[in-house]
């Protein structure tokens, strides 16, 4: 390799690293704004949680083992996603795909459980229009669920791109941004688990 092409190669790498940092920082700022959105929903729930106007309250309505299972699914999916990021960095394609598929399946199971819970509540007559407490509950948990669904769709798209183009720097940056998003959803779920479900069972 001649000296000039080596310099060009080095410059190219430097440029890619800068682009990676710019992209991930931009996405991080979006996540922080999402954090503020969730804080508004959490505080709405905290304020309205007892505003039942004499109708059904949220007390003792949720099955705790069910919620624990949901939490474990999401927590494990965050872990497997983290591993897939590291496998991608190390260029290990098969382990990366298997971890991504594991994450996807865990995420789908989580969403399935959440749909089941909502369906169960609604068929028993507890809808968002029951009272303010139920409205704020469905809004908070539903918004988190929508985020998880969009994360799953995005994961599918990233997997397709990885399959077609391989582990390119551009795909790695996408994978990393999705990772930030996915871990962030896990962090939000820790708050949902504590503030919505655990507080409710005390």
């Amino acid at each position, binding site marked *: 390799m001649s000296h000039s092409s080596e310099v060009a190669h080095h410059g190219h790498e430097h440029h890619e690293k800068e682009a990676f940092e710019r992209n991930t920082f931009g996405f*991080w700022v979006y996540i922080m704004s999402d954090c503020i959105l969730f804080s508004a929903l959490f505080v*709405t729930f905290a304020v309205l949680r007892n505003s039942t106007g004499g109708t059904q309250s949220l007390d003792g309505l949720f099955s705790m083992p069910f919620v624990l299972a949901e939490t474990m699914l999401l927590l494990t999916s965050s872990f497997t996603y983290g591993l897939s990021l*590291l496998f991608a*960095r190390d260029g290990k394609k098969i382990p990366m795909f298997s971890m991504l598929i594991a994450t996807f399946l865990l995420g789908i199971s989580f969403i399935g459980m959440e749909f089941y819970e909502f369906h169960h509540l609604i068929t028993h007559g507890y809808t968002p229009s029951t009272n303010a407490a139920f409205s704020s509950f469905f809004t908070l948990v539903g918004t988190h669920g929508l985020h998880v669904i969009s994360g799953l769709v995005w994961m599918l798209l990233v997997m397709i791109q990885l399959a077609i183009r391989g582990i390119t720097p551009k795909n790695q940056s996408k994978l990393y941004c999705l990772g930030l998003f996915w871990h962030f959803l896990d962090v939000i779920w*820790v708050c949902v688990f504590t503030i919505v479900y*655990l507080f409710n069972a005390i």
Partner: protein
Amino acid sequence: MIDHTSYKSYFIGFFISIILTLASYYIVTQKFLGEGNTYISIVTLAVAQLFIQIVYFLHINSEGKPHWNLISMMAAIVMVVIVVAGSVWVMYNMNANMIV
């Protein structure tokens, strides 16, 4: 940031997160602490869990200088605290002063 991350950090983060989740679940379902102590302990465990996940999964501590991710997170935390504490304060006083 991903350059310096090890597989170990994810295993540690995952392990501690599971322990913290099970601990708070156990405290709530077994009801062996008083109501006040239960609230305090599960909030503490949740904060610990957030800290663990931010360090071991989001790797906020391992970015190079200047720490823009950390700075933007601090700004977001300030806003979250204003939104949460402010709303709770206002609504609590409003409820307390309502003539029902």
